[in-house]
Protein backbone atom coordinates (compact mmCIF):
# COMPACT_ATOMS: atom_id res chain seq x y z
CA UNK A 1 0.00 0.00 0.00
CA UNK A 2 1.21 3.48 -0.79
CA UNK A 3 1.32 6.53 1.41
CA UNK A 4 -0.37 9.43 -0.38
CA UNK A 5 1.29 12.86 -0.01
CA UNK A 6 -0.38 15.98 -1.39
CA UNK A 7 2.12 18.82 -1.83
CA UNK A 8 0.85 22.36 -2.46
CA UNK A 9 3.72 23.49 -4.69
CA UNK A 10 5.97 22.11 -7.44
CA UNK A 11 9.00 22.64 -5.18
CA UNK A 12 7.44 20.55 -2.41
CA UNK A 13 6.50 17.82 -4.87
CA UNK A 14 10.05 17.66 -6.23
CA UNK A 15 11.46 17.55 -2.68
CA UNK A 16 9.12 14.68 -1.74
CA UNK A 17 10.12 12.72 -4.84
CA UNK A 18 13.78 13.23 -3.92
CA UNK A 19 13.22 12.24 -0.30
CA UNK A 20 11.47 8.91 -0.95
CA UNK A 21 13.39 6.61 -3.28
CA UNK A 22 10.35 4.52 -4.27
CA UNK A 23 7.93 7.45 -4.64
CA UNK A 24 6.06 8.12 -7.89
CA UNK A 25 4.27 11.30 -8.99
CA UNK A 26 0.51 10.76 -9.45
CA UNK A 27 -1.28 12.82 -12.10
CA UNK A 28 -4.79 11.69 -13.14
CA UNK A 29 -4.23 8.08 -12.11
CA UNK A 30 -5.80 6.64 -15.26
CA UNK A 31 -2.63 4.65 -16.00
CA UNK A 32 -0.55 4.68 -12.82
CA UNK A 33 -3.31 3.50 -10.45
CA UNK A 34 -4.29 0.82 -12.98
CA UNK A 35 -0.65 -0.36 -13.07
CA UNK A 36 -0.50 -0.38 -9.29
CA UNK A 37 -3.78 -2.33 -9.09
CA UNK A 38 -2.23 -4.89 -11.45
CA UNK A 39 0.91 -5.14 -9.29
CA UNK A 40 3.16 -3.77 -12.06
CA UNK A 41 4.44 -0.92 -9.86
CA UNK A 42 4.63 -0.77 -6.08
CA UNK A 43 5.41 2.81 -5.07
CA UNK A 44 5.91 3.35 -1.33
CA UNK A 45 4.63 6.92 -1.77
CA UNK A 46 2.31 8.49 -4.31
CA UNK A 47 2.95 12.21 -4.70
CA UNK A 48 -0.50 13.55 -5.55
CA UNK A 49 -0.09 16.51 -7.94
CA UNK A 50 -3.76 17.49 -7.76
CA UNK A 51 -3.39 20.26 -5.15
CA UNK A 52 -0.82 22.38 -7.02
CA UNK A 53 -2.41 25.49 -8.53
CA UNK A 54 0.49 26.08 -10.93
CA UNK A 55 -0.24 22.80 -12.74
CA UNK A 56 -3.83 23.70 -13.57
CA UNK A 57 -5.51 25.53 -16.40
CA UNK A 58 -4.89 26.63 -19.97
CA UNK A 59 -3.53 30.16 -20.43
CA UNK A 60 -2.50 32.44 -23.26
CA UNK A 61 0.73 34.42 -22.92
CA UNK A 62 1.32 37.94 -24.25
CA UNK A 63 2.50 36.65 -27.64
CA UNK A 64 -0.56 34.43 -28.07
CA UNK A 65 1.31 31.23 -27.18
CA UNK A 66 -0.61 28.71 -25.11
CA UNK A 67 0.47 27.11 -21.85
CA UNK A 68 -1.39 23.98 -20.79
CA UNK A 69 -0.86 23.07 -17.13
CA UNK A 70 0.30 19.47 -16.80
CA UNK A 71 -2.72 18.48 -14.68
CA UNK A 72 -5.23 19.66 -17.30
CA UNK A 73 -7.76 16.88 -17.90
CA UNK A 74 -8.37 15.53 -21.40
CA UNK A 75 -12.01 16.69 -21.20
CA UNK A 76 -10.87 20.30 -20.66
CA UNK A 77 -8.34 20.16 -23.52
CA UNK A 78 -11.00 18.63 -25.78
CA UNK A 79 -13.32 21.58 -25.00
CA UNK A 80 -10.70 24.38 -25.13
CA UNK A 81 -11.74 27.18 -27.51
CA UNK A 82 -8.20 28.60 -27.59
CA UNK A 83 -7.00 25.55 -29.54
CA UNK A 84 -7.95 26.71 -33.01
CA UNK A 85 -6.47 26.52 -36.52
CA UNK A 86 -3.03 24.95 -36.41
CA UNK A 87 -3.65 23.78 -32.82
CA UNK A 88 -7.05 22.22 -33.45
CA UNK A 89 -5.22 18.93 -33.99
CA UNK A 90 -4.43 18.78 -30.25
CA UNK A 91 -8.03 19.44 -29.27
CA UNK A 92 -9.22 16.68 -31.60
CA UNK A 93 -6.61 14.23 -30.26
CA UNK A 94 -7.75 14.93 -26.67
CA UNK A 95 -11.35 14.21 -27.64
CA UNK A 96 -10.43 10.78 -29.03
CA UNK A 97 -8.68 9.47 -25.92
CA UNK A 98 -10.42 6.44 -24.42
CA UNK A 99 -13.98 7.40 -23.35
CA UNK A 100 -15.72 10.28 -21.56
CA UNK A 101 -15.12 8.88 -18.09
CA UNK A 102 -11.40 8.38 -18.59
CA UNK A 103 -11.18 11.84 -20.23
CA UNK A 104 -12.56 13.26 -16.96
CA UNK A 105 -9.60 11.72 -15.12
CA UNK A 106 -6.50 11.56 -17.33
CA UNK A 107 -4.15 14.53 -17.70
CA UNK A 108 -1.90 15.77 -20.48
CA UNK A 109 1.18 15.77 -18.23
CA UNK A 110 0.49 12.23 -17.07
CA UNK A 111 -0.04 10.93 -20.60
CA UNK A 112 3.09 12.64 -21.92
CA UNK A 113 5.18 11.44 -18.96
CA UNK A 114 4.01 7.85 -19.51
CA UNK A 115 4.96 8.17 -23.21
CA UNK A 116 2.88 5.24 -24.40
CA UNK A 117 3.81 5.03 -28.09
CA UNK A 118 0.19 4.36 -29.06
CA UNK A 119 -1.31 7.23 -27.03
CA UNK A 120 -2.77 10.27 -28.77
CA UNK A 121 -1.01 13.37 -27.46
CA UNK A 122 2.58 12.79 -28.60
CA UNK A 123 1.95 12.88 -32.38
CA UNK A 124 -0.35 15.90 -31.97
CA UNK A 125 2.25 17.71 -29.85
CA UNK A 126 5.01 16.83 -32.33
CA UNK A 127 2.87 18.33 -35.10
CA UNK A 128 2.43 21.52 -32.99
CA UNK A 129 6.17 21.87 -32.14
CA UNK A 130 5.31 21.80 -28.43
CA UNK A 131 7.82 22.44 -25.65
CA UNK A 132 7.61 20.71 -22.28
CA UNK A 133 8.35 22.61 -19.08
CA UNK A 134 9.77 20.32 -16.39
CA UNK A 135 10.92 20.74 -12.79
CA UNK A 136 13.32 18.54 -10.85
CA UNK A 137 16.00 18.48 -8.19
CA UNK A 138 18.34 20.46 -10.48
CA UNK A 139 15.73 23.17 -11.08
CA UNK A 140 13.51 23.93 -14.04
CA UNK A 141 14.19 23.42 -17.75
CA UNK A 142 12.47 23.06 -21.10
CA UNK A 143 12.51 20.07 -23.46
CA UNK A 144 11.49 20.23 -27.12
CA UNK A 145 8.90 17.58 -27.97
CA UNK A 146 11.27 16.51 -30.76
CA UNK A 147 13.96 15.56 -28.21
CA UNK A 148 11.60 14.02 -25.71
CA UNK A 149 11.08 10.34 -26.59
CA UNK A 150 14.37 8.44 -26.52
CA UNK A 151 13.21 4.83 -26.71
CA UNK A 152 10.26 2.59 -25.89
CA UNK A 153 8.73 4.29 -22.83
CA UNK A 154 12.04 6.11 -22.35
CA UNK A 155 11.98 9.88 -22.21
CA UNK A 156 14.31 12.81 -21.61
CA UNK A 157 12.85 13.20 -18.10
CA UNK A 158 15.53 12.67 -15.46
CA UNK A 159 14.98 10.86 -12.18
CA UNK A 160 12.82 13.00 -9.92
CA UNK A 161 11.63 15.37 -12.65
CA UNK A 162 7.97 16.11 -13.31
CA UNK A 163 6.30 17.84 -16.25
CA UNK A 164 4.74 21.14 -15.14
CA UNK A 165 3.32 22.44 -18.43
CA UNK A 166 3.12 21.91 -22.15
CA UNK A 167 3.61 25.10 -24.19
CA UNK A 168 2.51 25.66 -27.75
CA UNK A 169 3.27 28.42 -30.27
CA UNK A 170 0.41 30.83 -30.98
CA UNK A 171 -2.17 29.22 -33.25
CA UNK A 172 -2.25 30.40 -36.86
CA UNK A 173 -5.22 30.30 -39.22
CA UNK A 174 -4.52 27.01 -40.99
CA UNK A 175 -6.41 23.75 -40.90
CA UNK A 176 -5.21 20.81 -38.83
CA UNK A 177 -6.60 17.38 -38.06
CA UNK A 178 -6.00 14.20 -36.10
CA UNK A 179 -6.98 10.75 -37.26
CA UNK A 180 -6.47 7.42 -35.58
CA UNK A 181 -7.00 3.90 -36.74
CA UNK A 182 -8.18 1.84 -33.76
CA UNK A 183 -9.94 -1.49 -33.36
CA UNK A 184 -12.87 0.07 -31.50
CA UNK A 185 -13.82 3.56 -30.32
CA UNK A 186 -11.61 4.52 -27.43
CA UNK A 187 -8.84 1.99 -27.95
CA UNK A 188 -5.22 3.04 -28.23
CA UNK A 189 -4.14 3.71 -31.81
CA UNK A 190 -3.03 0.99 -34.19
CA UNK A 191 -1.59 3.96 -36.09
CA UNK A 192 -2.42 7.65 -35.95
CA UNK A 193 -1.65 10.84 -37.85
CA UNK A 194 -1.55 14.48 -36.74
CA UNK A 195 -1.33 17.03 -39.54
CA UNK A 196 -1.42 20.80 -39.96
CA UNK A 197 -1.30 22.77 -43.19
CA UNK A 198 1.01 25.77 -43.54
CA UNK A 199 -0.93 29.07 -43.49
CA UNK A 200 -0.27 29.60 -47.23
CA UNK A 201 -1.58 26.10 -47.97
CA UNK A 202 1.64 25.10 -49.76
CA UNK A 203 3.20 22.81 -47.17
CA UNK A 204 2.37 20.74 -44.14
CA UNK A 205 3.60 19.38 -40.84
CA UNK A 206 2.75 15.78 -40.07
CA UNK A 207 3.50 13.29 -37.31
CA UNK A 208 2.68 9.58 -37.21
CA UNK A 209 1.91 7.81 -33.92
CA UNK A 210 2.04 4.16 -32.78
CA UNK A 211 4.62 3.15 -35.41
CA UNK A 212 7.74 3.44 -33.28
CA UNK A 213 8.80 4.42 -29.76
CA UNK A 214 7.92 8.05 -30.37
CA UNK A 215 6.02 10.12 -32.93
CA UNK A 216 7.55 10.11 -36.43
CA UNK A 217 8.21 13.51 -37.94
CA UNK A 218 10.57 14.35 -40.82
CA UNK A 219 11.08 18.10 -41.20
CA UNK A 220 13.50 17.68 -44.14
CA UNK A 221 10.89 15.67 -46.05
CA UNK A 222 8.30 18.34 -45.19
CA UNK A 223 10.60 20.95 -46.81
CA UNK A 224 10.93 18.78 -49.94
CA UNK A 225 7.13 18.37 -50.13
CA UNK A 226 6.46 22.11 -49.81
CA UNK A 227 4.88 23.49 -52.97
CA UNK A 228 4.02 19.98 -54.25
CA UNK A 229 0.97 19.05 -52.13
CA UNK A 230 -1.18 18.56 -55.23
CA UNK A 231 1.30 16.02 -56.67
CA UNK A 232 0.18 12.56 -55.45
CA UNK A 233 3.64 11.09 -56.19
CA UNK A 234 5.31 13.70 -54.00
CA UNK A 235 2.84 12.98 -51.18
CA UNK A 236 3.58 9.26 -51.41
CA UNK A 237 7.33 9.97 -51.43
CA UNK A 238 6.79 12.02 -48.26
CA UNK A 239 4.84 9.15 -46.66
CA UNK A 240 7.68 6.78 -47.62
CA UNK A 241 10.14 9.03 -45.72
CA UNK A 242 7.99 8.71 -42.59
CA UNK A 243 7.64 4.95 -43.08
CA UNK A 244 11.43 4.74 -43.32
CA UNK A 245 11.66 6.27 -39.82
CA UNK A 246 9.13 3.76 -38.44
CA UNK A 247 10.05 0.92 -36.11
CA UNK A 248 6.65 -0.70 -35.64
CA UNK A 249 5.88 -3.68 -33.42
CA UNK A 250 3.66 -6.68 -33.96
CA UNK A 251 1.08 -6.51 -31.20
CA UNK A 252 -2.54 -7.23 -30.43
CA UNK A 253 -3.65 -4.12 -32.35
CA UNK A 254 -1.94 -4.99 -35.61
CA UNK A 255 1.19 -6.36 -37.24
CA UNK A 256 4.24 -4.24 -37.98
CA UNK A 257 3.64 -4.79 -41.69
CA UNK A 258 0.04 -3.62 -41.42
CA UNK A 259 1.15 -0.49 -39.59
CA UNK A 260 3.67 0.32 -42.35
CA UNK A 261 0.86 0.04 -44.90
CA UNK A 262 -1.30 2.41 -42.87
CA UNK A 263 1.22 5.26 -42.97
CA UNK A 264 0.73 6.33 -46.65
CA UNK A 265 -3.03 5.81 -46.35
CA UNK A 266 -3.21 8.00 -43.26
CA UNK A 267 -1.10 10.74 -44.86
CA UNK A 268 -3.17 10.88 -48.05
CA UNK A 269 -6.55 10.65 -46.32
CA UNK A 270 -5.79 13.25 -43.63
CA UNK A 271 -4.32 15.56 -46.28
CA UNK A 272 -7.52 15.37 -48.34
CA UNK A 273 -9.54 15.95 -45.16
CA UNK A 274 -7.70 19.17 -44.29
CA UNK A 275 -7.58 20.30 -47.94
CA UNK A 276 -11.38 20.09 -47.83
CA UNK A 277 -11.41 22.25 -44.67
CA UNK A 278 -9.44 24.90 -46.61
CA UNK A 279 -11.96 24.94 -49.45
CA UNK A 280 -14.83 25.31 -47.00
CA UNK A 281 -13.02 28.13 -45.15
Amino acid at each position, binding site marked *: *MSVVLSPGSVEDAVAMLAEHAEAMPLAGGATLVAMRNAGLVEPTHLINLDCIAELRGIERDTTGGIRIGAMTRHCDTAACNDLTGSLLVLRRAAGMIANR*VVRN*MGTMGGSVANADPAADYLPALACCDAVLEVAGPEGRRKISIHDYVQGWYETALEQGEIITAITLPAPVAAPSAYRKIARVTGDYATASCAMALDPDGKGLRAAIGACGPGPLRDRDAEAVLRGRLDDPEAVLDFAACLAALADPLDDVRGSAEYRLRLIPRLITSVLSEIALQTEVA
Partner: protein
Amino acid sequence: MSKKILHSLNLNGEEVEVATPAGATLLETMREDLRILSAKRGCNQGVCGACTVLIDGKPVRACLTLTARCEGHAVQTMEGMGGDRVMATLQRHMVESGGVQCGFCTSGILISARELLEEDPAPSRAAVKTALSGNICRCTGYRTIVDAVCSAAEELAQ
Protein backbone atom coordinates in the same frame (compact mmCIF):
# COMPACT_ATOMS: atom_id res chain seq x y z
CA MET B 1 -1.48 -5.88 7.39
CA SER B 2 -1.52 -2.22 6.52
CA LYS B 3 -2.04 0.88 8.52
CA LYS B 4 -5.43 2.53 8.21
CA ILE B 5 -5.82 6.25 7.60
CA LEU B 6 -8.85 8.30 8.61
CA HIS B 7 -10.51 10.26 5.80
CA SER B 8 -13.58 12.49 5.80
CA LEU B 9 -15.68 12.10 2.70
CA ASN B 10 -18.83 13.70 1.38
CA LEU B 11 -20.69 10.61 0.21
CA ASN B 12 -24.18 10.89 -1.25
CA GLY B 13 -24.66 14.23 0.52
CA GLU B 14 -23.54 13.04 3.95
CA GLU B 15 -20.26 13.69 5.72
CA VAL B 16 -18.71 10.34 6.65
CA GLU B 17 -15.49 9.46 8.45
CA VAL B 18 -13.82 6.28 7.26
CA ALA B 19 -10.65 4.46 8.22
CA THR B 20 -9.16 2.83 5.13
CA PRO B 21 -5.75 1.41 4.17
CA ALA B 22 -3.14 3.97 3.07
CA GLY B 23 -3.33 4.48 -0.68
CA ALA B 24 -6.67 2.68 -1.01
CA THR B 25 -8.81 3.37 -4.05
CA LEU B 26 -12.28 4.83 -3.61
CA LEU B 27 -13.66 1.50 -4.85
CA GLU B 28 -11.83 -0.43 -2.10
CA THR B 29 -12.90 2.06 0.56
CA MET B 30 -16.52 2.03 -0.54
CA ARG B 31 -16.84 -1.74 -0.84
CA GLU B 32 -14.62 -2.90 2.04
CA ASP B 33 -15.00 -0.13 4.62
CA LEU B 34 -18.34 1.54 3.84
CA ARG B 35 -20.27 -1.40 2.34
CA ILE B 36 -21.37 0.78 -0.59
CA LEU B 37 -21.80 -2.04 -3.09
CA SER B 38 -23.37 -0.52 -6.22
CA ALA B 39 -19.93 0.15 -7.70
CA LYS B 40 -18.51 -3.21 -8.76
CA ARG B 41 -14.95 -4.41 -9.01
CA GLY B 42 -14.68 -5.73 -12.56
CA CYS B 43 -11.29 -5.25 -14.18
CA ASN B 44 -9.79 -2.92 -11.54
CA GLN B 45 -8.02 -1.30 -14.53
CA GLY B 46 -10.45 1.46 -15.49
CA VAL B 47 -11.54 -0.40 -18.61
CA CYS B 48 -14.84 -2.14 -17.80
CA GLY B 49 -16.78 0.78 -16.30
CA ALA B 50 -18.53 -1.26 -13.60
CA CYS B 51 -17.16 0.99 -10.81
CA THR B 52 -18.21 4.31 -12.39
CA VAL B 53 -19.34 6.91 -9.80
CA LEU B 54 -19.73 10.69 -9.81
CA ILE B 55 -17.19 13.03 -8.26
CA ASP B 56 -18.34 16.65 -8.20
CA GLY B 57 -21.01 15.58 -10.68
CA LYS B 58 -18.62 14.07 -13.22
CA PRO B 59 -18.36 10.33 -13.86
CA VAL B 60 -14.99 8.79 -12.94
CA ARG B 61 -13.65 5.30 -12.29
CA ALA B 62 -13.67 4.54 -8.56
CA CYS B 63 -10.98 1.87 -9.11
CA LEU B 64 -8.53 4.50 -10.42
CA THR B 65 -9.40 7.20 -7.87
CA LEU B 66 -7.52 7.31 -4.58
CA THR B 67 -9.69 7.84 -1.52
CA ALA B 68 -7.17 10.38 -0.24
CA ARG B 69 -7.97 12.52 -3.28
CA CYS B 70 -11.70 12.56 -2.58
CA GLU B 71 -11.49 14.73 0.54
CA GLY B 72 -13.20 18.03 -0.20
CA HIS B 73 -15.09 16.59 -3.18
CA ALA B 74 -18.66 15.27 -3.44
CA VAL B 75 -18.88 11.54 -4.19
CA GLN B 76 -22.20 10.18 -5.51
CA THR B 77 -23.12 6.56 -6.09
CA MET B 78 -26.31 4.83 -7.19
CA GLU B 79 -27.28 4.53 -3.52
CA GLY B 80 -27.69 8.32 -3.39
CA MET B 81 -29.66 8.74 -6.60
CA GLY B 82 -32.99 7.26 -5.53
CA GLY B 83 -34.73 10.61 -5.80
CA ASP B 84 -33.33 11.53 -9.21
CA ARG B 85 -36.07 11.59 -11.86
CA VAL B 86 -33.74 10.99 -14.82
CA MET B 87 -32.12 8.06 -13.04
CA ALA B 88 -35.45 6.55 -12.00
CA THR B 89 -36.68 6.76 -15.60
CA LEU B 90 -33.48 5.16 -16.94
CA GLN B 91 -33.75 2.36 -14.35
CA ARG B 92 -37.34 1.57 -15.29
CA HIS B 93 -36.56 1.45 -19.00
CA MET B 94 -33.51 -0.76 -18.36
CA VAL B 95 -35.72 -3.27 -16.56
CA GLU B 96 -38.52 -3.09 -19.13
CA SER B 97 -36.25 -3.49 -22.16
CA GLY B 98 -34.23 -6.37 -20.74
CA GLY B 99 -31.13 -4.19 -20.44
CA VAL B 100 -30.42 -5.84 -17.07
CA GLN B 101 -29.39 -9.46 -16.99
CA CYS B 102 -26.75 -10.34 -14.38
CA GLY B 103 -26.70 -6.69 -13.26
CA PHE B 104 -22.97 -6.40 -12.68
CA CYS B 105 -22.45 -3.60 -15.23
CA THR B 106 -25.80 -1.92 -14.60
CA SER B 107 -24.98 0.82 -12.12
CA GLY B 108 -21.96 1.93 -14.17
CA ILE B 109 -24.05 1.93 -17.35
CA LEU B 110 -26.78 3.98 -15.65
CA ILE B 111 -24.35 6.60 -14.37
CA SER B 112 -22.77 6.97 -17.84
CA ALA B 113 -26.23 7.14 -19.45
CA ARG B 114 -27.44 9.78 -17.00
CA GLU B 115 -24.38 11.92 -17.79
CA LEU B 116 -25.18 11.59 -21.50
CA LEU B 117 -28.81 12.67 -21.06
CA GLU B 118 -27.69 15.67 -19.02
CA GLU B 119 -25.54 16.88 -21.93
CA ASP B 120 -27.71 15.64 -24.79
CA PRO B 121 -31.37 15.06 -23.85
CA ALA B 122 -32.21 13.62 -27.30
CA PRO B 123 -29.21 11.47 -28.28
CA SER B 124 -29.01 9.40 -31.47
CA ARG B 125 -28.39 5.65 -31.13
CA ALA B 126 -24.82 6.30 -32.30
CA ALA B 127 -24.35 8.92 -29.56
CA VAL B 128 -25.65 6.46 -26.96
CA LYS B 129 -23.23 3.79 -28.15
CA THR B 130 -20.31 6.24 -28.03
CA ALA B 131 -21.30 7.44 -24.55
CA LEU B 132 -21.44 3.83 -23.30
CA SER B 133 -18.25 2.76 -25.08
CA GLY B 134 -16.42 2.76 -21.73
CA ASN B 135 -18.90 0.33 -20.12
CA ILE B 136 -18.59 -3.35 -20.87
CA CYS B 137 -21.59 -5.70 -20.65
CA ARG B 138 -21.07 -9.42 -21.24
CA CYS B 139 -24.73 -10.45 -21.11
CA THR B 140 -27.02 -8.33 -23.21
CA GLY B 141 -25.20 -7.63 -26.45
CA TYR B 142 -25.94 -3.93 -25.74
CA ARG B 143 -28.97 -3.55 -28.03
CA THR B 144 -31.47 -3.65 -25.18
CA ILE B 145 -29.35 -1.18 -23.19
CA VAL B 146 -29.27 1.29 -26.10
CA ASP B 147 -33.05 0.76 -26.50
CA ALA B 148 -33.53 1.59 -22.82
CA VAL B 149 -31.52 4.83 -22.96
CA CYS B 150 -33.28 5.98 -26.14
CA SER B 151 -36.78 5.23 -24.83
CA ALA B 152 -35.99 6.84 -21.46
CA ALA B 153 -34.84 9.97 -23.34
CA GLU B 154 -38.09 9.99 -25.31
CA GLU B 155 -40.18 9.68 -22.16
CA LEU B 156 -38.22 12.44 -20.39
CA ALA B 157 -38.69 14.75 -23.37
CA GLN B 158 -42.49 14.53 -23.09
